[in-house]
C-alpha cells in the first residue's frame, strides 16, 4: 500500500492537471470570442457578406467550444475547492488567513461574474441588445482573466512567500500588496496568460486546418486560421522572453528548482546545458548525458563561467529532478516548435495571399497535429513549477507532509481510481466531441436554423425581433 501522502498528492495532481486544461483555453478564448463578435458587428452592414458571415460562423462555432470548455472548468473547479480541505487540511489551518481571502476574492469577483454572464452570452441573443450582449461577452472574458489573477497570486505566494508574519505557527498578513505582488507573481501571471493565448492560437489553427482538410466551414476556417497563426506568431517570442525572465526569477528565489531542471548535482561554474540525461536520485548522478558545454551557465547567469548551485547543496530540501528535467525540456521543446510553426506558417499563408485552398495539405496536416500542443506545454510547465516546489507546500516554510489529512490511504486510493477513470473518460469525450463539432459545423448550424424556425413559429415568448440579426 502506498503511503497516504503520495496518494493525496497524486489525487490532487490528477485533479489540478485535469482542471488547468480548461481554464487554459477559456481565459484566452473569452477574448477571442469578443474579437470575433466585434468583427461581425463591424462587417455585417458592409458589402462583403462572406467575410461578415465568416466571422459570425466563427463566433457561433467557438462559442460552443467555449461553453463545453467552461462547463468542464466549472465542474473540475468545484472538485478542487473541496480537495483543499479533504487532501490538505493543515494547509488552510496554517495559511488560511492568506490563502482564504485570495480564494474568496476569486469566487466573489471572478467566478460569479463569469458564471452569471455566461448564460446571457450563450443564450441571450434576441433577448438583449447587441450592446448588452457584447458587454456580457466582455464580462465573461474579463472574469476568466480576473480568476487567473487571484489564483496565480496565491500560487505565486506559495512559491515565493512574502508580506506575512508567523505568530504561534499561524500565518498572518502584514502587507496585502506584498502578498499579492510577491516576487514571482508578475512573471508567473504573464507566463500563464500568454500560455493561454498560445494554447488558444494553436487550437484555432489546428481545428480550422482540420476543417479545411475536411472541406467544411468554408467561410470561417480561412479567417480563423489567419487569426490563429497571427496570434501565435505574435505571442510566442514574447512568451520566450517572459519565460526566460521567469526562469531567472526562479534561479534567484528557488535555486533548488533550477538545479533539478538543469540536472546539476554539484555546484559548478560553467555548467553545461544537458540536452538529454536521466537524473538518478539514488546514485545522485546523471546517466546518459548529452551536453553542450557552458551553455546552462550562459543562459541562466548570462556569463560563460557563472555559478549554478547543485542539488547536493540542498539535500532534503530539493525536488525530485527526474520529472522536472523532462517536463522542462518538453515545455521548451514545444515552445521552439511553436515558434518555427507559427512564423513559417504565417509567412507561407501570407505568400498565398491568405487563400487557404492554396496551402499544401501537408502543412494543414501539420497544423492539425499541433492542435493540443499548448495543452502539453502548459501542463509540462505547471509540473516544473509545482513538483519543483516540493518537498514544500509553501516554499521553504511548510512541508507538504506536515499538512496532509488523516484519511486512510485505502479511501484516498479508491477515490483516486474513481477520479482518474472519470477524467480520462472526459478528456477522451471532450477531444472527440471537438473533432466531431469541427467536422460538422454546417450541420450543427443548420440544425440551429431549423430549430430557430420551429421555435419562432411555436414559441410565443420569443421576441419577434430575435431572428433579425441573421
Amino acid at each position: 500500500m502506498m503511503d497516504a501522502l503520495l496518494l493525496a498528492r497524486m489525487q490532487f495532481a490528477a485533479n489540478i492537471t485535469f482542471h488547468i486544461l480548461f481554464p487554459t483555453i477559456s481565459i484566452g478564448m473569452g477574448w477571442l470570442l469578443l474579437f470575433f463578435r466585434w468583427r461581425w458587428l463591424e462587417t455585417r452592414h458592409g458589402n462583403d457578406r462572406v467575410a461578415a458571415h465568416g466571422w459570425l460562423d466563427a463566433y457561433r462555432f467557438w462559442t460552443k467550444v467555449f461553453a463545453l470548455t467552461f462547463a468542464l472548468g466549472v465542474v473540475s473547479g468545484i472538485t478542487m475547492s473541496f480537495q483543499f480541505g479533504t487532501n490538505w487540511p493543515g494547509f488552510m489551518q496554517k495559511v488560511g488567513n492568506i490563502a482564504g481571502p485570495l480564494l474568496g476574492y476569486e469566487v466573489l469577483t471572478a467566478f460569479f461574474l463569469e458564471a452569471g454572464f455566461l448564460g446571457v452570452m450563450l443564450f441571450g441573443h434576441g433577448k438583449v441588445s447587441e450592446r448588452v450582449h457584447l458587454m456580457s461577452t466582455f464580462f465573461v472574458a474579463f472574469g476568466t482573466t480576473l480568476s487567473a489573477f487571484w489564483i496565480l497570486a496565491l500560487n505565486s505566494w506559495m512559491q515565493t512567500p512574502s508580506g506575512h508574519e508567523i505568530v504561534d505557527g499561524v500565518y498572518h498578513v502584514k502587507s496585502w500588496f506584498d502578498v499579492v505582488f510577491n516576487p514571482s507573481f508578475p512573471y508567473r501571471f504573464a507566463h500563464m496568460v500568454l500560455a493561454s493565448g498560445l494554447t488558444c492560437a494553436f487550437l484555432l489553427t489546428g481545428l480550422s486546418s482540420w476543417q479545411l482538410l475536411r472541406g467544411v466551414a468554408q467561410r470561417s476556417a480561412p479567417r480563423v486560421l489567419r487569426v490563429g497563426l497571427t496570434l501565435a506568431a505574435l505571442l510566442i517570442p514574447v512568451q520566450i522572453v517572459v519565460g526566460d525572465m521567469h526562469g531567472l526569477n526562479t534561479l534567484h528565489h528557488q535555486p533548488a528548482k533550477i538545479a533539478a531542471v538543469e540536472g546539476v548535482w554539484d555546484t559548478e561554474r560553467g555548467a553545461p546545458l544537458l540536452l538529454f540525461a536521466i537524473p538518478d536520485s539514488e546514485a545522485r548522478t546523471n546517466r546518459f548525458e548529452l551536453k553542450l558545454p557552458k551553455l546552462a551557465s550562459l543562459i541562466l547567469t548570462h556569463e560563460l563561467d557563472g555559478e549554478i548551485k547543485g542539488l547536493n547543496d540542498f539535500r532534503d530540501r530539493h525536488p525530485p529532478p527526474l520529472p522536472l528535467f523532462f517536463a522542462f525540456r518538453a515545455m521548451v521543446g514545444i515552445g521552439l516548435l511553436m515558434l518555427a510553426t507559427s512564423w513559417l506558417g504565417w509567412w507561407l499563408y501570407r505568400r498565398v495571399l491568405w487563400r487557404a485552398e492554396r496551402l499544401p495539405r501537408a502543412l494543414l496536416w501539420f497544423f492539425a497535429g499541433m492542435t493540443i500542443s499548448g495543452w502539453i506545454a502548459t501542463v509540462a510547465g505547471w509540473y516544473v513549477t509545482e513538483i519543483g516546489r516540493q518537498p514544500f507546500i509553501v516554499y521553504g516554510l511548510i512541508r507538504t507532509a506536515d499538512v496532509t489529512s488523516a484519511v486512510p490511504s485505502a479511501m484516498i486510493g479508491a477515490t483516486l481510481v474513481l477520479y482518474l477513470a472519470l477524467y480520462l473518460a472526459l478528456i477522451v469525450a471532450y477531444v472527440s466531441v471537438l473533432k466531431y463539432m469541427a467536422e460538422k459545423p454546417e450541420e450543427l448550424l443548420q440544425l440551429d436554423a431549423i430549430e430557430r424556425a420551429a421555435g419562432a413559429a411555436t414559441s410565443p415568448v420569443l421576441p419577434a425581433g430575435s431572428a433579425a440579426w441573421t
Partner: protein
Amino acid sequence: MDVMSFDRVLPVVFMALMGASMLVYVISDGYDLGVGMLMHRATDAEKDVLIASIGPFWDANETWLVLGVGILLVAFPKAHGLVLGELYLPVALMLVGLTLRGVAFDFRVKAKDTHKKAWDRLFFAGSTLAAVAQGWMLGRYVSGFGTGWNYPLFAAAIAVALPMAYVLMGATWLIMKTEGQLQERAVQWARIAWAPMVGGLVLISMATPWVSATVRTRWFALPEVIALAAIPLMSGVSLLAVRGLLATRHVRGPVCWLPFVLLVIVFVLGFLGLAYSIYPYVVLDQLTIWQAASSPEALKVILFGTCISVPAIAGYTVFSYRVFRGKTGELKYA
C-alpha cells in the same frame, strides 16, 4: 460597538453568510438537480425543453456551492478539515455526480446523435448521485457525525428525502417555465413527488431531536417552543397549499409560479430551523464558530470584498433571471 465585540460578531456574520450561500445553493441547484432527475420520464422532445429551462442558470447556481464551501474553507478552516474529512467519500461521490451532469448537459447537444441518449442517461444519473450524496451529507452533518446504528439510518432517510424535495422543486420549476402537455405532465410529477417529500420531512423532523440531545433541548425548551412552532406550522400550511394548488386548474394558468415560490419558503423555513438547532456550533457539539474561525484581520478583508461583490452578484443574477424570464423557448447558441 467597540472593536473587541466587532471581532466577536465577525464569525457569526460569516456563519450567516455561509448559511445563506448554502441555502441559495440548495434552492437554486435544487430545482435544476430536480429537473435532471425528471429527465428519464420525459420524451425526447421534452428533454430538450427541460434542459433549455435550466440552461442559462446552472453554472451560476453551482457557484453558490463554491462560495459556501469557500467560506467554510476561508472563515472556518478547522471546521473545513473536520467536516470534509468526515464526509470524504460522499463528497467524492457528489463531485463525480456534479461533474457528470455538468458535462453531460453540454455534451448532449454537441455529440453525435447516437451518443445523445447515453449523455441523457448520464445527466439523470449524475443529478441523482449528487442529490443522494448531498442528502447523506446533510444527515451526517445535522447529527454531528454521531456514531451508532441510528445515525446512518437517519442519514439514509435524508438521502432519500432530499432528492424527493429536489424533484418536487424541479417539477414546480417546470410548471412555471413550460406550457402545454409538458406542463400538464410536470403537474403530475409534482403530485407524485409531494407525498414522499412531505413524509420524509415529517420523519426527519421527528427523528432530529431523537438523534441529537442538543437539538432536543433546543427545540422543546419553554417558552421558545411557542415561537418556534411557527416554523413547522408555516411549512405545513405552505406544503398543503402546494398540494391544493396542484389539484386545481389554476396552477397551469396565471399562478403557475406559486407552487415554486411556496416551496422556496419551505426551504427557507427549514433552513432557519436548522440554523436555530445548530447555532453556535459549526460542527454540532464539537466545534463552535469562534473556535473554528480564522483571525479577525483575515475575516475583515473578506468581509470588505463580500460587502462590495455580493450586491453586484445579486444584481446580475436578477438581470440574468429577467433576461430569461417567462416560458422557456428553444435554446440556442447565438
